[in-house]
């Protein structure tokens, strides 16, 4: 095949920018995705996820920057020259071809001798063998999505781009496909770039998660790191829940910063705060907060609030607590005790947490 680039290695984006007219959809992204890793791209609608994938696939050329796989510069090359396949957000199946011919399209173009067996295997994998003879318009949305997945997977590309590939599936099938995808990815050792709206999906499947916002990457890292130590307000709120408050940093106490949040002195580990003077957005995850009726002795880091809502969840009880600042915090109590504290809305409670769990990020969104 003329022009086909047998590139191998890590996927690298170097200050990749894409503008449409005077609108910047992707703004100078730098990114390295190690070969064989499962990379999730998470972000709100319109933040540039699809545009980023399209530049990797070659369907869109970056306005500036480079796209590389290993040492091969793919910038400017055509989509069919790249060892990259896409599962389109809108499936984009060939309406005039049967399911089988849809899946066999890639292998046939590459003159693969095993095209037929590979197609069968791919159909088997997504449980679509029995529909092989149908046309796409005769399938449900979820079935079409699985065909789109098979059509890309069958080629074993160096990089597989998945643009919300499981969005139309019901929960059960979705979980099955997640496991299946993860299995394929580890088995074949392909690089997967997975775009999703589903945080849980991103966190359970990916080795690395990148949170995107307004065309740039806010933060990138292993899911647990991102959750534990968000570096921006956007990430803190986008990934999981966060109890937050705005405060002014007043000084230090050993390894901790001390901030005044609405009359309460809170401590944040120095290393866990992105700002060290002036205003800070202080935050702590709900499951890290303990609730009690009495003020805990000698711990510090405590705030008195009023219970607004109690919901019993089985393994835990969830509380919504109105804070003096006017914010509403959420926290959990594991149902471990023989005699639970049995709080009612309107009760006064003390919330406390280990300063090591708190984080500080800039108040302004970048």
């Amino acid at each position, binding site marked *: *095949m*003329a*022009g*086909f680039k047998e590139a191998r290695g890590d996927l690298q984006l170097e200050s990749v920018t894409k503008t449409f007219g005077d609108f910047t959809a992707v703004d100078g992204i730098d990114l390295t995705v190690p070969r064989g890793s499962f990379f999730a791209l998470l972000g709100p609608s319109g933040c540039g996820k699809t545009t980023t994938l399209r530049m990797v*696939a*070659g*369907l869109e050329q970056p306005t500036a920057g480079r796209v590389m796989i290993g040492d091969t510069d793919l910038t400017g090359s*055509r*989509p*069919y020259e790249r060892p*990259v*396949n*896409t599962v*389109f957000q*809108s499936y*984009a*199946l*060939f*309406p*005039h*071809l049967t399911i089988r011919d849809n899946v066999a*399209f*890639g292998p046939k*173009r*590459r003159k693969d001798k095993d095209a037929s067996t590979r197609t069968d295997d791919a159909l088997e994998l997504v449980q679509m063998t029995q529909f092989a003879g149908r*046309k796409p318009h005769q399938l449900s949305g979820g079935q079409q999505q699985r065909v789109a997945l098979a*059509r*890309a997977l069958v*080629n074993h590309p160096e990089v597989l781009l998945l643009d919300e590939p499981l969005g139309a599936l019901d929960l059960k099938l979705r979980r099955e496909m997640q496991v299946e995808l993860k299995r394929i990815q580890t088995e074949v050792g392909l690089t997967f770039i997975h775009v999703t709206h589903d945080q849980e999906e991103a966190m359970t499947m990916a080795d690395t998660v990148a949170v995107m916002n307004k065309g740039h990457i806010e933060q990138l890292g292993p899911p647990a790191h991102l959750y534990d130590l968000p570096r921006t307000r956007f990430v803190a709120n986008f990934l999981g829940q966060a109890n937050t408050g705005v405060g002014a940093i007043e000084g230090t106490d050993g390894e901790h910063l001390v901030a005044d949040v609405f009359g309460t002195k809170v401590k944040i580990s120095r290393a866990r705060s992105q700002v060290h003077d002036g205003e800070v957005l202080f935050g702590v995850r709900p499951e890290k907060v303990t609730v009690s009726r009495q003020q805990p002795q000698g711990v510090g880091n405590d705030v008195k609030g009023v219970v607004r809502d109690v919901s019993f969840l089985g393994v835990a009880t969830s509380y919504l607590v109105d804070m003096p600042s006017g914010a509403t915090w959420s926290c959990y109590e594991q149902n471990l005790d023989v005699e639970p504290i049995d709080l009612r809305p309107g009760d006064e409670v003390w919330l406390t947490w280990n300063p090591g769990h708190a984080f500080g990020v800039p108040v302004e969104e970048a």
Partner: protein
Amino acid sequence: MSSLAQVSQVAGDPAVHPTAPAPETEKRSWTAYLLLLPGVLWLGVFFILPLVQLAAVSLQSRFPGFPGYYYRDLNFENYLSALTDYAPHFARSFLYAGLATFLAFVVAYPLAYAMAFKAGRWRNLMMICVVAPFFTSFILRTFAWSQILADEGPVAAVLNFLHLLPGGHIINTPVAVVAGLTYNFLPFMVLPIYASLERADPRVIEAGGDLYANGFTTFRTVTLPMSMPGVLAGTLLTFIPAAGDFVNMELLGPQRGKMVGNVINDQFLAVPGGYPVAAALSFTLMAAILAMVFLYVRRFGTDELV
């Protein structure tokens, strides 16, 4: 209503009227018939009746000695004469119509493709240009072509200057007829192809590129097949009227070697006592076109257009 009837049937009660569920469905179908009525009436009066009349005429015989007078008959010789005497005219009609259809396709496809994918903000202007000829009459446009292709006209002059015109003329040749047919039916080819291309999801065409098909292969395996319903409609809309056309031959064609449309026209209007043969020719033409269309659609038809 219907559930009541079912229950009573299960219970074996003969007292309930067995046609109980009928009124509702009857009402619904009446609405449908009412909606059909104007169309059916129109077609009945202005299409079916004349067709029956024409069929009757095509089997009539002349009164010997009284030119222009006929009597009712089952004279199939009219058809025999249509097929034997005018076989070359039929052949020419289908040949010229086929050539014009092919040429129109060759011109129309790139045009429709450009309009659908490349034109951007020029798209509406291009669309207006494609339909603009409809604002003047068919005959007038064909007259204009007779000027353009005339011996003193620009086309013949340029070609003669370049010594590219062996016969020296374009006007009054089959070439002019095919050119006229191609021109006159071009919009009927462009519009359906454009519609089917415009409807195609650009992501699907991108998927071809993503799956290792280069530009040409993507066109051959994705874009073209996706636009087949439009191509099919366009070729039918061009071939059918072109095969029965007589205006282009009349105004642009040679004196001898006419098309079947001209023969029918002459038999009806110019030849005394030509009515039955003209009618038989018309029916034969219709049957032949129907048969060809049937075979063509059977061969190339897609799910959307069969």
